[in-house]
């Protein structure tokens, strides 16, 4: 009775995961989809604790299990509640790393049971795969987390790509050797493989630029899915298998969709051509001419007397946490009869959809957010475009300069509006490391300063005007 009930629970769990993913990919049902998957997960966890049996023996150590669940739940709950909206991407990365570490630890423990016994090769293979994939995912996610919150700087040295490939091949070769020759004299090789996989995870993510972290996190996310599926093989557990493989497949597709939104290939992201070519591009361009600054009061007047203002939020808005004051500006302008809309580039900020989440947090209405194509139609009829800490996504070089590293990336064509006001902290280039010709156009004026401070002053100016 117990085991057949558990099988049924696993079936229900698998279906909730499929339904959950399906609902998550539509805006109206997304939230419910997440809850459906969470409910299925809870059911599967409880079912496993009380119903799982092997050779007629139930699981024991309940105190340890519940202790672990309790600690994990409380910590996870607090972390997820406390994290700021801008820090969401790195939080996802961190949680992903925990999943990878969990898979690796399972492999380590199962391996401990194997030593000294005659193990089936299939079992050993899944243990090794779970260990390697889980460790790479864990180490890589931690580096991605550190990069997103600025604790870890980009780091690359000559020949790193080749070094990485050699390290990976050596790790896999050691695993293959162990798979066919495991005995009491070489069982320690397993722990070397563990360390090598961790090192590979670090070296794999370190040279990739911070702006590409979303793609990397999505990729590592699908890795962890595969690592979880290895556990499914190991225990012949269908819910782990379907859940893991589903995420592995969906995660891979999502990674490619994200790359597509940035008009880059996955290889290009992983090998990181931005770092190499950008220096050369910036060097040859040199001086672009002069730019002009605009005073706060001029900017305030300019916007208050416009018919239509488009706001282009970027990463600068996110770091400055300026979404609330941005909404305040929008309300103020609307009171004056100005039509205000937001133009959202799919990869503005640190993650696709990041801006939508941030602005929604500040209560900006959903229908004011225009996607790139709609926005590009509306720039022609806009009087003022206010660019808030965005750079590469409004760089006209992506359309006009085939030599530019971002050539071909779809951009927001803000230069079609009558006036462009760009708020930035300095003239420093954005992530792609290239100059932006937009800033030097006659219709563009610069408003320097931190996005939040500048917006607050702007709001005050408009109120007084």
């Amino acid at each position: 009775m117990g085991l057949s009930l558990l099988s049924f629970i696993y079936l229900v769990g698998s279906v909730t995961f499929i339904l959950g993913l399906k609902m998550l990919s539509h805006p109206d049902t997304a939230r419910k989809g997440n809850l459906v998957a969470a409910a299925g997960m809870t059911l599967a966890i409880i079912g496993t604790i009380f119903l799982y049996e092997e050779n007629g023996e139930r699981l024991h150590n309940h105190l340890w299990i519940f202790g672990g669940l309790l600690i994990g739940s409380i910590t996870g709950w607090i972390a997820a509640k406390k994290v700021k909206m801008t820090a969401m991407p790195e939080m996802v990365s961190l949680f992903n790393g925990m999943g990878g570490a969990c898979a690796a630890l399972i492999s380590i423990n199962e391996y401990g049971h194997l030593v000294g016994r005659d193990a089936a090769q299939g079992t050993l293979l899944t243990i090794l795969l779970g260990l390697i994939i889980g460790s790479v995912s864990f180490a890589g996610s931690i580096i991605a987390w550190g990069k997103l919150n600025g604790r870890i700087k980009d780091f690359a040295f000559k020949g790193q790509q080749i070094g990485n490939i050699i390290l990976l091949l050596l790790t896999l070769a050691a695993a293959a050797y162990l798979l066919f020759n495991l005995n009491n004299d070489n069982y320690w090789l397993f722990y070397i493989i563990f360390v090598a996989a961790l090192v590979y995870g670090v070296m794999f993510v370190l040279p990739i630029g911070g702006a590409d972290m979303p793609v990397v996190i999505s990729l590592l996310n699908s890795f962890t899915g595969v690592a979880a599926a290895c556990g499914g093989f190991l225990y012949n557990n269908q819910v782990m298998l379907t859940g893991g493989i589903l995420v592995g497949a969906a995660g891979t597709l999502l990674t490619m969709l994200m790359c597509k939104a940035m008009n880059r290939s996955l290889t290009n992201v992983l090998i990181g051509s931005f770092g190499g070519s950008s220096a050369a591009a910036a060097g040859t361009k040199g001086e672009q001419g002069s730019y002009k600054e605009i005073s706060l009061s001029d900017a305030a007047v300019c916007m208050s007397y416009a018919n239509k203002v488009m706001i282009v939020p970027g990463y600068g808005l996110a770091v400055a946490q300026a979404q609330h004051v941005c909404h305040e500006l929008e309300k103020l302008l609307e009171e004056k009869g100005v039509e205000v809309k937001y133009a959202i580039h799919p990869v503005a900020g640190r993650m696709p959809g990041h801006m939508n989440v941030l602005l929604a947090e500040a209560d900006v209405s959903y229908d004011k957010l225009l996607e790139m194509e709609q926005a590009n139609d509306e720039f022609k009829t806009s009087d003022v475009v206010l660019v808030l800490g965005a750079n590469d996504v409004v760089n006209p070089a992506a359309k006009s300069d085939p030599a530019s590293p971002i050539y071909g990336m779809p951009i927001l064509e803000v230069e079609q509006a009558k006036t462009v006001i760009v708020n930035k902290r300095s003239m420093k280039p954005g992530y792609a490391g290239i100059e932006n010709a937009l800033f030097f156009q006659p219709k563009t004026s610069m408003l320097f300063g931190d996005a939040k401070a500048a917006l607050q002053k702007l709001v005050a100016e408009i109120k007084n005007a």
Partner: protein
Amino acid sequence: MESFFDWVHNNHAIIYIVILSIFLGIEVIGRVPSVLHTPLMSGANAIHGVVIIGAIIVMGRVDPDNYIALIIGFLAVILGTLNVVGGFMVTDRMLEMFKKKK
């Protein structure tokens, strides 16, 4: 070669699950708007937290005197739970923002 066919024959149910799940995973999120990329990634992140089931099984089978295994298993349960609970909650917080405003 024969051993390969034997292997397929002996594990055919699992192989079917894997292949169908791959197609399902790709199909099911095929038309996601870019706005939802981040929440979807986060949701998928929570779902692979299903690895916690493996951690529970490991933990539940460990010999109560084997302290090293107990500690490793205990850590695995904590980390897996973090992935599940944190993952679903962060996703929910993101999606909460997408509520339609009147």
